[in-house]
């Protein structure tokens, strides 16, 4: 009995040790599994995990860059970028929280606050509501783009969940419509769309930088890790434009257009000795700061883009070409009876009888100008016009810049050669016309034109001798005398030289009943500093002569410009002068 009992006890002990080993083995196995897992996570899977973690708290942030300013020659800002805030909403922001917090979070989006937001941003309440609605399934909805920073701060202060800011820049044009055509504008993504903004987009545009940051649970940046690319602001652009002259020109042109009920108009002021453009203005204009609902035709910088037939304003060049080539002499007389070329009449508006060269320009006789033109070989005449830049782009590089047209001399008929002398069959922009006058203003040197400030003109070319240029300039000084065609172009205190043009407006396949009224002039005539070209398109208020519509605008702008530029008067006899030694 006893032995049996002992044996059975012994067997029981054996059983326990087996279980113990089994348990030990299991624990060892579990430990090994854990170690293996730890090794796997730490060594083999570590990159994947780190990346996953970083994607949750590290993010790349864009650093916006300033677009360069556009300045006038005196450093006055014409286009300035100001920081603005774009507000956006993530309607699902509350969903990403734990259920309990999400409920509390959602109650923060109250009707009252939505109303307040709509109030601050001047948006319809429905629009704000829809931005917060989750029905679209979007995680990113713009509330309003380009908001004043102060207003954006007010919205942020309401503490609406899911609302966030993006820093952006908005372009402001302080001079508004005065510089609208010239500068153009940018689109909502700050890219140049028209004018200089488009032309110099590459250099004006800043380079957006980026950096990596660590964010906390509320998506606030808590640490900069590294800068990937620093933001580079765009370069400033300094123009040759004088903002005061630009304003003056704009004001007078607008007044002129209103007075004469004209369809459109353009005006260019050039610095006579450098070809720098001091002002370019057009009508009709637009406000670049509020462009909604405007027709594209309003954006057109007519002075540079549109061409027209310049009419009699070319006559001084015909006289200059003929004098220069020795085809006429200064003392020659011209009879101005209407005459026919192969059955087509060349006529004057009035009977002038026999005229000397000065009176040909003073009275603007088409007949005499035609006779002078016909005295020249076509090739010589063409070369002269071509050298003045007719049919060639003025070369400022403005988007859509016109080249104009000048037919080749071998296709000219005699009649065409005659009409070219009084400015038909040849077309150009107001800028090209003003540019040609630099040849008369700077004693025979034709200048290139530029919208950028420069000290001297590197592309100046002589097209006339000094004597011829001065001779013709003296002749067109007579145009603004009492019995000339443009007495109203005079500026008291200064000697003015210029020429009128009244042109039938060319339309598809012929000429309309409308006229273009043109005047180009320079002052002070003894040593011209400024050239102004004015073109008024289709004045409807009765008057249409260049000397009555365009010339008074010229006189007002020129008078103001000479004063603003501080140019010494050269017609001292009609002003009081105090001599101080």
């Amino acid at each position, binding site marked *: 009995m006893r032995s049996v009992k002992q044996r059975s006890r012994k067997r029981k002990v054996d059983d326990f040790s087996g279980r113990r080993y089994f348990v030990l083995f299991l624990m060892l196995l579990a430990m090994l599994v854990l170690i293996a897992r730890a090794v796997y996570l730490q060594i083999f899977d570590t990159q994947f995990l780190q990346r996953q973690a970083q994607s949750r708290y590290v993010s790349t942030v864009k650093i916006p860059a300033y677009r360069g300013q556009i300045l006038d020659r005196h450093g*006055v*800002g014409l286009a*300035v*970028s*100001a*920081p603005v805030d774009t507000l956006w909403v993530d309607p699902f922001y509350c969903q990403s929280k734990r259920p309990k917090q999400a409920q509390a979070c959602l109650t923060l989006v109250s009707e009252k606050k939505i109303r307040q937001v709509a109030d601050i941003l001047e948006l319809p309440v429905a629009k704000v509501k829809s931005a917060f609605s989750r029905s679209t399934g979007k995680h990113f909805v713009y509330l309003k783009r380009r908001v004043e*920073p102060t207003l954006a701060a007010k919205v942020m202060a309401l503490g609406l969940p899911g609302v966030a800011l993006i*820093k952006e820049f908005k372009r*402001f044009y*302080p*001079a508004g419509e005065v510089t609208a055509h010239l500068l153009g504008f940018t689109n909502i993504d700050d890219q140049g769309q028209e004018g200089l903004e488009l032309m110099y987009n590459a250099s004006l545009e800043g380079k957006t930088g980026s950096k990596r940051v660590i964010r906390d649970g509320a998506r606030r940046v808590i*640490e*900069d890790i590294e800068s990937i690319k620093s933001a580079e602001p765009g370069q400033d652009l300094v123009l040759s434009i004088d903002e*005061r002259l630009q*304003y*003056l020109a704009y*004001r007078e042109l607008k007044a002129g257009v209103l007075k004469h009920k004209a369809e459109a108009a353009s005006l260019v002021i050039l610095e006579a000795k450098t070809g720098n453009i001091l002002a370019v203005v057009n009508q009709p204009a637009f406000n670049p700061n509020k462009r909604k609902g405007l027709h594209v035709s309003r954006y057109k910088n007519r002075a540079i883009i549109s061409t027209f037939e310049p009419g009699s304003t070319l006559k001084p060049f015909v006289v200059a070409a003929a004098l220069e080539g020795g085809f006429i002499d200064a003392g020659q007389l011209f009879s101005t009876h209407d005459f026919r070329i192969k059955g087509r009449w060349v006529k004057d508006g009035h009977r002038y009888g026999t005229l000397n060269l000065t009176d040909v320009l003073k009275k603007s006789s088409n007949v005499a100008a035609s006779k002078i033109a016909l005295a020249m070989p076509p090739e010589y005449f063409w070369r002269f016009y071509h050298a003045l830049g007719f049919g060639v782009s003025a070369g400022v590089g403005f988007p859509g810049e016109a080249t104009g047209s000048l037919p080749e001399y071998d296709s000219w008929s005699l009649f065409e050669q005659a009409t070219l002398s009084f400015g038909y069959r040849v077309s150009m922009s107001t800028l090209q016309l003003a540019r040609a006058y630099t040849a008369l203003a700077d004693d025979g040197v034709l200048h290139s034109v530029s919208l950028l400030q420069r000290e001297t003109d590197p592309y100046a070319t002589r097209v006339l001798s000094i004597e011829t240029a001065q001779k013709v300039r003296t002749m067109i000084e007579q145009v603004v005398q009492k019995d000339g065609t443009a007495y109203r172009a005079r500026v*008291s*205190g200064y000697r003015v030289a210029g020429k009128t043009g009244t042109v039938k407006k060319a339309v598809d396949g012929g000429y309309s009943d409308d006229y273009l009224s043109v005047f180009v002039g320079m002052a002070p005539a003894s040593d011209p500093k400024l050239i102004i070209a004015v073109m008024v398109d289709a004045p409807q208020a009765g008057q249409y002569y260049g000397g009555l519509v365009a010339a008074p605008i010229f006189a007002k702008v020129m008078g103001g410009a000479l004063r603003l530029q501080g140019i*010494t*008067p050269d017609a*001292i006899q*009609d*002003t*009081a*002068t*105090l*001599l*101080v030694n």
Partner: protein
Amino acid sequence: MIESKYSARLLFIKIQAAEQRLEQLEISWKRLIIEERMLSDHNQVEKSAHSKMGLIEPNRQAIVYIQL
């Protein structure tokens, strides 16, 4: 190690404060530029010169030129 980490954090806070200030100054600078341009708008200046101060442009005969 702990100390350098701590001072880095302090510096970072300073940088952020400075950056924020820079941003604020930039915003107000640009706003001032624009405001200045609005106030010096030729149209406005001209209007107030004419109406408020009663200034006129003298005609040419009334101007005496001084030649030095």
